[in-house]
Structure formats: structure tokens, C-alpha cells
């Protein structure tokens, strides 16, 4: 279960898989869904990712950004398809089939590992280590597991029962948990090092960044991550009717949308609603989440102020779109200048114009135009400008830090400067996507196994080509089927914390999955049979096949090279059908991410003759 071995060419040629931090073979499970093999699809999605169900709801889906279909019309709705199978077979499924028993599991070992932080990175590491046989203890500072999955991501995006079910599945492997144990107060790093053979620091980036603005210490100025965490933990956070969210990321969207939904958050009025010590965060995504959450908190007038234009905003496009549907306003290319204060309370935010956000090298380095001041009236100003890591908790003998005040790690092994201490997730590189945290956790687990047991995990990248004789998509209209996004709740029904995005119906899922180009299918040439007739060149609808002197590919060679431009190939297979000598054929690349005892998918696609 190595998380990131060297990818072979044919692995990289599956862009969704190459883009996924845990290399989920999305093409394989999408194709399996198209053919109705849902169990196979679920296992393919689940194998590299213990949070497959959560990812089916909220993954940032780098696979979709990489999807080759995106350069033709729109990428496959991969994340929604994953949800379609996790709803059937994941821990949240009502059927009770535990198909995860098919996943590999090793015998128990003597060594123990302590993991600081029960977020996605820590739990992913716990999952892999436990399956490899180690005794695992997770130390969680708050009273709930899940980290940013439950503290940062609002409930209207991610159902808590689902997160808990997926976490429970990991705990059921035999993972010990100690709740309410905060590093630096209840336990120190030194104690953990003595208690365990290996320690994983996966406590996230939980401190909201502030801004040294005049007035930022006034009442009504809050940090987004703390706002989200407190809302999600059930503490009351006062927001006024007019909320201004500063930031352009997903956390800003979440905060804005949450502020609108405040009434639905079941306040526990007995609990003092002071913000407890900060703990947990997510940066680029922070701004959007904050904005969306603010709306749910009961505000009626929520405005997001971002330095970026609507195109430049780092928040996911769908989040911005949903926020707009919910009535959240956007002010682009304005930066915060000062917070207007009256009687110690914030009454507005004065902004300045933005000349540029990035410098010539593309680094974040905003330049402002100070003579165009504008003031937005606000009762509450939520700052969603990023989070930082609570490095103080590491104590005096902690590992080395990066200049950005995160835990420094060896990029290869994920180990810190201290022997026997690894680090993963946001604590190492600041806030990133959920799936990056899962990837970190899995890589740490693999390296710990390497260090403690001296075992290098089997390189599963050893793929193979499986010839398929029945690849024909002639009767299949996949290339003209438009992307179908899962339905969302109509805006008037977005009451409270109901999940906004709905899943696919079976028909929708099969149809959307059939759009997959199947980049794992590779055209093969038998050079002995090729007669260079160029019929394939002629029939290719996109002019992707060329015949050129071999010398232009590799000097000194003779003969002719048949070259395929795979970046635009839609695997229609016409060249194969046209080939008079059967020199061309189709093979499926079964690389890693597919269980070995599973038949390769993609054979016998579509009807046609």
C-alpha cells in the first residue's frame, strides 16, 4: 500500500489518476460504473483512500481539473460518481455489505505509533498503519474526531453522520483514541516519543490569521476558521445582520453561507459561547467557506470582499456559484484597509482598490491603490485570510520549522528533523485540500513501516497491458453526451443544514460515467503487421495519428514511426476498426489502484458492430 511510487508512462497517461494525491484510479472506477460494476468501482475508489465517502462529497477533485475530457467539453463529474458508489457500499450505506473486508490486512505487530491529531491526515495514517498491523493511538485535542472534515467543512456540504461512519470504520480496525488530549498541555512531544515507537504530527493548521488593520481588535471582528470551528462544535457565535467576509477562498464561501444559516445550528446555550482556543484550519479554501457559513448563521446581508477578480478567486467555482444563488454579494478587487469602529464595536470595513494581486513571478504580492477608499457597513467582519500552525504546542525540543512556521519535513519520507517523528497534513505545508492530507497520512504510514519493519512496500506501479478484443464504441454516443452535474437543492429549500448537493440517480450516474474517454485504454501497434497504408491517419477524426520518418523521432533510426497524440485522443477506436491488417489493437493498462484479482474494466464497451 505505497501511496506514491514512481508512476509509469501509462499511469501518467491517465490524467485523473496522476493528478490525484493518492492516485485513485478514477478512470477505472468511472468505467466500472458505466458498465454497472458498482462494487468493483467502490473498491477501486476505496483502495487508496480511507475517506472515499467524504471525498465523494467534498473532495476538491483535482482529477476533474486534469480530466482529458475537460479539454473537449467538460470533465467527467468524477466526484459525484464516487458518491454514487460510496452511497451504496461505503460505511454510510444502509445495506450493511462490508465490502472493505476484501481489502488487504496484515497480522498484528508489536510496535506502536502515536498520532497527534484526529483529522484526515492522522486518521489516514492510522488506517494504513493499523491495517499493516501496528498498534495505533490517536490523540485528539477536541471532543470530536475528523479535524477539518467536521470543524471546517460546514454541515450543509458534508453530512456529519457520513463522516462519523467513515471514521468509525477506521476505529473498528482497532485504533485507540484519546479525546481531549492537546499537545503541549495534556501531553508533550517528549512523552509521546517515549510512549511510542513512532510519532506522527498531524495536528493541522488551526490558528486563524489576523490582519494588523486599524480596528481589528474591535468586537464583531472574527477569524473565519475560528468562526467555522465554533459553529461546527455547537458554540454560539454572534453575527450581526450585515456581515462582511474578507477573503476569496473556499473558507470565505463557507463562512458566508454558514452565517446565513445560523438559526439552524443547534446552539447549546448552556455552553459559554466564548471562542475556545483556536484549533484547526484550512486556507485557500477558507474564504469561501466562511462566506457561505456566515449566511447560515442568520445574517441577512452577506458580502464577500476579495482581492481577486471573480476569475482569479481561489474558491471553487461551484462554491461561488452556490453562494451567489443563496444571495451572497461579491466585491472584487478590493483589499481591507481599516475597520470602522464605534463604541468598541465594528460598524464597517473600509477597503482600498487593488492594482494587482500577483507579482511578475506569479507570487501573491498585492499592490493597492490607496486613494480610492470605500466603506461597507457591517456588524460583523469575518477575516478569511488563511490559517497558521500552532507551533508553540511542540515545546522547546520540537522538530525544525520552515520559514513559514510549519513543521519541516523531508519531502521524500515525510520525516521531521527528530528521529522517530513524522509529520503530515496541514501542519507541514499549511492548509491544503482534504485529499492532500489523506495522501500525506498514507505516505507517512508507508515510511513508518519502512523504518520500523524494514519493509519497502511492494511497488504496485508494476502495471500490465491487458489486451481487449472487444473495444468498440461505435454505437455509443459518449462523445456527444454533455456533462451532467448532480442536482442541488433549489435555493428556497436550502433551509438549515440540509446537504445542498444531491447525488446522482442510477440513470444519471451510468450516463455521466459513459462520458469517460477511458485513458487507461491504450492503442497498441504490432509493427510486424503494419503496412503503412495510413488508413488510420485518414480515419482519425481529430488528425492525431501521424506517420513520420523514424529519424525525426530518434536520429539514426530508419523506417517510419507511427505517432499518436494522446492528449486529445478520445479512444473511439476507429483506427483499430479501420486497420486492414489488424496491426492496431486496444489494451487496458491495469496499473495500481485496481485490485489484482479484479478483471480489468473497459472491455466490451458499448454496443455497435
Amino acid at each position, binding site marked *: 500500500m505505497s501511496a506514491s511510487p514512481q508512476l509509469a*508512462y501509462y499511469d501518467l*497517461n491517465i490524467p485523473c489518476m496522476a493528478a490525484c494525491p493518492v492516485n485513485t484510479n478514477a478512470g477505472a472506477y468511472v468505467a466500472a460504473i458505466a458498465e454497472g460494476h458498482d462494487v468493483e468501482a467502490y473498491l477501486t475508489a476505496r483502495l487508496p483512500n480511507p475517506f472515499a465517502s467524504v471525498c465523494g462529497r467534498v473532495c476538491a477533485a483535482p482529477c476533474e481539473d486534469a480530466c482529458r475530457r475537460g479539454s473537449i467539453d467538460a470533465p467527467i463529474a468524477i466526484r459525484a460518481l464516487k458518491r454514487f458508489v460510496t452511497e451504496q457500499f461505503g460505511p454510510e450505506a444502509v445495506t450493511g455489505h462490508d465490502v472493505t473486508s476484501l481489502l488487504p490486512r496484515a497480522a498484528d505487530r508489536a510496535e506502536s505509533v502515536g498520532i497527534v491529531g484526529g483529522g484526515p491526515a492522522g486518521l489516514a495514517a492510522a488506517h494504513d498503519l493499523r491495517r499493516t498491523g501496528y498498534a495505533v493511538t490517536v490523540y485528539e485535542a477536541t471532543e470530536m474526531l475528523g479535524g477539518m472534515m467536521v470543524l471546517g467543512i460546514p454541515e450543509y456540504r458534508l453530512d456529519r453522520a457520513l463522516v462519523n461512519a467513515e471514521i468509525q470504520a477506521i476505529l473498528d480496525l482497532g485504533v485507540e483514541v484519546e479525546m481531549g488530549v492537546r499537545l503541549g498541555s495534556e501531553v508533550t512531544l517528549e512523552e509521546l516519543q517515549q510512549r511510542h515507537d513512532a510519532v506522527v504530527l498531524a495536528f493541522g493548521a488551526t490558528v486563524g490569521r489576523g490582519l494588523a488593520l486599524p480596528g481589528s481588535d474591535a468586537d464583531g471582528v472574527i477569524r473565519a476558521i475560528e468562526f467555522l470551528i465554533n459553529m461546527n462544535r455547537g458554540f454560539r457565535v454572534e453575527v450581526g445582520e450585515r456581515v462582511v467576509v474578507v477573503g476569496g477562498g473556499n473558507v470565505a464561501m463557507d463562512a458566508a453561507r454558514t452565517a446565513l444559516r445560523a438559526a439552524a445550528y443547534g446552539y447549546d446555550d448552556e455552553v459559554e459561547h466564548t471562542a475556545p482556543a483556536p484549533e484547526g484550519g484550512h486556507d485557500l479554501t477558507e474564504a469561501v467557506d466562511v462566506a457561505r457559513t456566515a449566511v447560515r448563521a442568520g445574517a441577512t446581508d452577506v458580502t464577500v470582499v476579495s482581492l481577486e477578480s471573480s476569475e482569479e478567486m481561489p474558491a471553487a467555482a461551484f462554491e461561488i456559484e452556490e453562494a451567489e444563488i443563496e444571495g451572497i454579494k461579491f466585491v472584487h478587487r478590493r483589499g481591507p484597509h481599516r475597520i470602522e469602529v464605534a463604541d468598541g464595536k465594528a460598524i464597517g470595513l473600509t477597503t482600498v482598490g487593488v492594482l494587482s494581486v500577483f507579482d511578475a513571478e506569479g507570487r501573491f504580492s498585492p499592490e493597492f491603490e490607496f486613494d480610492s477608499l470605500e466603506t461597507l457597513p457591517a456588524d460583523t467582519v469575518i477575516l478569511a485570510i488563511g490559517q497558521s500552525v500552532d507551533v508553540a504546542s511542540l515545546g522547546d525540543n520540537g522538530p525544525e520549522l520552515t520559514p513559514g512556521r510549519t513543521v519541516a519535513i523531508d519531502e521524500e519520507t515525510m520525516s521531521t528533523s527528530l528521529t522517530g517523528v513524522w509529520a503530515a497534513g496541514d501542519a507541514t505545508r499549511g492548509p491544503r485540500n482534504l485529499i492532500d492530507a489523506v495522501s500525506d497520512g498514507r505516505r507517512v504510514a508507508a515510511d513508518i513501516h519502512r523504518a520500523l519493519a524494514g519493509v519497502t512496500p511492494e511497488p504496485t506501479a508494476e502495471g500490465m497491458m491487458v489486451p481487449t478484443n472487444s473495444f468498440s464504441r*461505435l*454505437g455509443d*454516443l459518449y*462523445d*456527444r453526451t454533455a456533462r451532467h452535474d448532480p442536482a442541488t437543492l433549489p435555493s428556497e429549500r436550502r433551509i438549515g443544514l440540509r446537504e445542498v448537493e444531491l447525488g446522482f440517480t442510477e440513470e444519471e450516474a451510468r450516463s455521466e460515467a459513459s462520458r469517460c474517454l477511458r485513458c487507461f485504454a491504450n*492503442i*497498441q*501497434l*504490432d*509493427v510486424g503487421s*503494419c503496412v*503503412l*497504408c*495510413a*488508413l488510420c*491517419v*485518414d*480515419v*482519425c*477524426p*481529430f*488528425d*492525431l*495519428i*501521424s*506517420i*513520420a*520518418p*523514424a*529519424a*525525426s*523521432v530518434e536520429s539514426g*533510426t*530508419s*523506417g*517510419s*514511426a*507511427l*505517432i*499518436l*497524440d*494522446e*492528449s*486529445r485522443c*478520445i479512444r*473511439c477506436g*476507429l483506427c483499430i*476498426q*479501420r486497420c486492414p491488417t489488424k496491426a*492496431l489493437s486496444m489494451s487496458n493498462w491495469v496499473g495500481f489502484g485496481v485490485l489484482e484479482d479484479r478483471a480489468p474494466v473497459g472491455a466490451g464497451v458499448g454496443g*455497435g*458492430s
Partner: protein
Amino acid sequence: MKAFRESTIGRSLFRSPDRVTRRDQAAGHWSNFLLHLYPVKVRRFELRFRYSWFLGVASTVLFASLIVSGIYLMFFYVPTPLTAYGNIQELQTNVAFGQFIRNVHRWSAHLMVLTVAAHMARMFYRGAYKSPREFNWMIGVMLLGLTLLLSFTGYLLPWDQLAYWAVTVGSAMAGFVPLVGDTVQETLVGGSQVGSSTLLRFYVLHIAVLPTLLVGLLMIHIWRWRKDSMFDLAASEAVESVSDMEPGRRVLGVVPGVPATGDRKDPSEQDLVMTSPHLLIRHAVVALGVLLIVLAISLLFDAPLRDLANPFETPNPEKAPWYFAALQELLSHFHPMVAGILVPGAIVFGLVGLPYFDRNPATTPSMRKVAVVVFTTFLVVWVLLTLIGFAFRGANWEWVWPWIEWHGEL
């Protein structure tokens, strides 16, 4: 239509989806029997009129019009000297559209000789007989020969004075061939002079043997055109965009050997367009245009029908069909050995062997001046001789200005 396509019968008929995306276009083209003689894609410049003047298409359309009108004529025609002339008269006066269909047949035949010859000339100037198309040029020469023979054999069938004496003169030319000439002439004519055997033999050649040969050769001709247009899609020289292999371009394999020829560009840079509809629509327009011309001429001019053939009354002048007029003109100046054998022999030999004599690979006219000058000279001389023989000769083959006395016969 959509519902029909999705029915059981529709799905058995059409093997690919209706044409919406480029893939459907390629798949539909490839799985369509009627389109299988076309390549799926052509280079955009091949769509332009000046590339081919669409003369090959025009010739093919005229041939189709000849088959259709010819079948109609066959219903009313019996090839014996006793009945032939009467049948034609009957056809012209008593059969629905008889005169019109005969006109279509007659004028299509003359036009086809013109378009086939012009097609050949156009292909010469484009250098389209060069490698790898040498043999297809040869088939083209054979197709020209078959076209002439078809026209010539058809010329006799009305059995009027014009037909009888044109064929007498024309077949007499065959007699000049040394050694075998007499035998050839006798076999063709079926006796010492044009008579009932000649009529029957010409009829069978005209309606069965020659059209079958022509269709067969035409298929090969078009098939080879398609094959060669595919070779053009291969790159003949090292192409920059190939040597700078971009990510995503995978070498499927290195095959020994090289394609017969190739463009100097990579297919992705050749500006390829789908044959269907881009080329097809142009071919359809050309076909309709050619038919329009044929129908218009047929409405305006009737095919000639002179008096019943009379072996005892030789017309003066005695003229071969117009496409042999240049030869007849030559015969009036030179010894039959020269005009009847050496010159025509040299022409046939020159045309057939052209791709093998002309080893210069260049196709632009400025790079192949000798070939262009020689061919142009021949063409101009031949056209002039044809014009003179056709229109400027009167009784006793004397020079006559055509506007004073008209002796041309079509």
C-alpha cells in the same frame, strides 16, 4: 428519421450514429458503402476548383448519364441494318422523350471525350502522374482509350450516312497497322466492308464489353486515388513538431519501410477537412452543374440523323468522328505509315510511358519546363489539327472557311 434509426431495422441498416460529432462523421463515412471510395479526410486545398477543376467528377457523371440514357435507348433498338435506322426514326417521333434521351446520350458522349481529355491535361499540369501515382496515370490513359472506343462504336449504331462513313473511315485507319492491320480491321468490321456483322459487333462492344471494362478500370482508378490521398497524410520529411515530441505524443511503433510518398507536414498541420460534407457537397454541385449543361444542350440541339446508310453513295467529304479529325488531317499530309502508325503510336507510347520517362520529382510547372513545353506543344498542335479536320475541310478535303461552308459533323 431519429426514431427510424433507433428501430430494429434502422439499427441493422446504419452501423454508426447519425453525424453530429467529428467521430460520428468519420465513423459514418467509413461504414458507408457508397462513400467507401472516398477518403475520410482531404486537405483543404483539394476542395478548391483550380485543384482539379472537378473534371474527373464531371467525366464520371457524364458516364453515369450515358448509362442511364443508353439503357432507355436499348429498349427501342435492334442492331440490324434492316431495323436500326427505322428504330431511331421511330424513337425520335413516336417514343416518349425518345428524341430528348437520344440527345442526352449523344451530347454526354461528346462531352465525356472532352472532359476525360481535359482531366488528363489538368493532371499533367499538376504533375499528378508522379510517384506514387504512375500506374494510376496509366489506367487513366486506358480510360481515355475506352472512352474513345465507346464513342466510336456508338457512332455506328444509328446506321445513317454519317455513322456509316465515319466508321468506314475510322476503321480503315486500323488497316494501316503493319502486319496485323488487315486482320484487326476485318475482325472489327466482321467482313470486307461495314455491314450487318459490324453493326452487331459494335453493338455488343458498345453496350456490354467496353462499359464493363470502363467501370472496372474506373473503380481501380478511384480506389487508387483514395489510397494515394492517404499517403499524402504521412510526413515525408522530418517534421519539427514531431521531433520536438510534446508530452502526450506517443510513438506507437517504428515500422520498417516508408510510405510511398507523403506531404512534408504533419497531419495535424495539414488543415484536413472531412470529405463528408466538404468535398461531397462540391461534387454534388459539380454533378448537378454538368447535368444541367447536358440537359440544356439536349433541349436546344437535336442529335443529327442523316439519310439511311448507303454503301454505294459516298459522301464528300468523308469524315471520321471529330476526335479522330486530327489523325485524318495528318493522313492528308503524310504517308499512312507516318500519319496512321508512327504518330498515333508515339502518342500512345508517350502518354502511357510519361510517368516513367519523366523522372523529375517536381510538380510545380516552373520546375519542369521541358515536360510542360513538350506537352503544351503537343496539345496545341493536336487541338489545331482537330479543329482543321473537323471544321475547315470540305469536299475532296479542300480547305473551306467554316463560316462560308459548314462541314463539321457531330
